[in-house]
């Protein structure tokens, strides 16, 4: 018997024995069990009203999109180039850390996006939560859906639309910080000379969306 187990290792037990003990409380199918328990947690937390932010990712022709919704509505759409992990961290900080992958809440918008990318849908019919933007930016973002499917406007025209024709640059910023790209169609806003201008999902995604809508 060893009466000074700490001398053997940091735990007072050999690392082999620790590993055996750890394995003893695991089973080969733990990842399946944990996946099932995770899904159950997503459902239970929704039922109990503590799921503040639910998210899911969907594959689209412009790459994987992260979709996040509060209980009020869709709050964020993010391109992969924005780094989904960073976006989630940001949501946890700005909205609530009670955030889980819980695709149920995103089912409807996911379906509508699928229809949109298949050319079978021209407008989105889901509740939006614009709490990630404020003031003039939010005002612009609220008005962008007025630019219909397949149409485009210049930044200046949008500035006029919101009643502030001198705020061309501010409109550009409002588009660049749109928390709900694709669903709020900032891709329909171009430079006055008809060139693309910037886009949060990159020029290629912007061009792809415009091509889709022109077809």
């Amino acid at each position: 018997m060893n009466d000074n187990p700490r001398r053997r290792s940091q735990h007072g037990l050999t690392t082999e024995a620790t590993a055996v003990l750890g394995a003893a409380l695991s089973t080969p199918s733990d990842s399946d069990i944990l996946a099932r328990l995770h899904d159950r947690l997503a459902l239970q937390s929704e039922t109990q009203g503590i799921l503040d932010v639910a998210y899911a990712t969907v594959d689209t022709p412009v790459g994987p999109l992260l979709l996040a919704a509060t209980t009020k509505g869709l709050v964020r759409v993010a391109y992969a180039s924005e780094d989904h992990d960073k976006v989630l961290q940001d949501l946890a900080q700005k909205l609530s850390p009670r955030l889980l992958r819980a695709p149920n809440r995103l089912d409807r918008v996911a379906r509508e996006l699928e229809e949109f990318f298949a050319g079978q849908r021209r407008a989105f019919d889901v509740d939006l939560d614009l709490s990630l933007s404020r003031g003039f930016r939010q005002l612009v973002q609220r008005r962008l859906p007025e630019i219909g499917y397949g149409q485009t406007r210049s930044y200046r025209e949008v500035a006029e639309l919101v009643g502030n024709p001198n705020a061309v640059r501010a409109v550009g910023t409002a588009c660049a910080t749109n928390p709900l790209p694709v669903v709020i169609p900032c891709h329909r806003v171009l430079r006055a000379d008809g060139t693309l201008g910037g886009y949060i999902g990159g020029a290629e995604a912007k061009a792809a969306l415009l091509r889709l809508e022109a077809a």
Partner: protein
Amino acid sequence: MVHLMGRPATPAPVHGNHDVGRGRHRRAPARIPATERSEVKQPFEKVVEEHGHTVLRVVRAVLGPYDADDAWSETFISAMGAYPDLPHEANVEAWLVTIAHRKAIDVLRAAKRRAMPVDEISGPPHAPHSVAVDGSSGPELLDTLELWAAVRTLPDKQSQAVAYHYVAGLPYVEIARILGGTTEAARRAAADGIKNLRKIYPGGMTEGAPS
């Protein structure tokens, strides 16, 4: 510029004063630097991802596989409800293990009130149904199940101290907080647990352990 662990620890129910015995960084997410993680609270999704397995093992150590799932769910629902109020510098794993311990004990007490048949405690281990369909039977799996059963036959304090220290990797000072009593008592309970495990289950525990 590195200000890793640069935040002064303010008094909190549980905080990150790990002893040297911990030393486990295997599950730190690669993409979020430690500096950032210490400053802001992680999404709860990451908490489940990083600590779900530990909580599962802890509730199993107390309950076995059958009631473990429910205790796991109750642990995370309860933790998620309280998560926004948890101090940023808190040791999340110790906090979760504390909750898991409480939930598991509740389930255990309820089960004992129903007068559990003796063979459920000391009889041969029942394989979880998911293991039965797995192809990897053989001596290793059997050993694992036997040892698992052996941990559960230890007196409560010992099996918990063993699980929390050796499985969850918690320092004894945290375990003492969870189980009540002194750090030394927690250390002794774990040591006694290991000693008893060696008696019950000599095969796995003597391996590589010179006596």
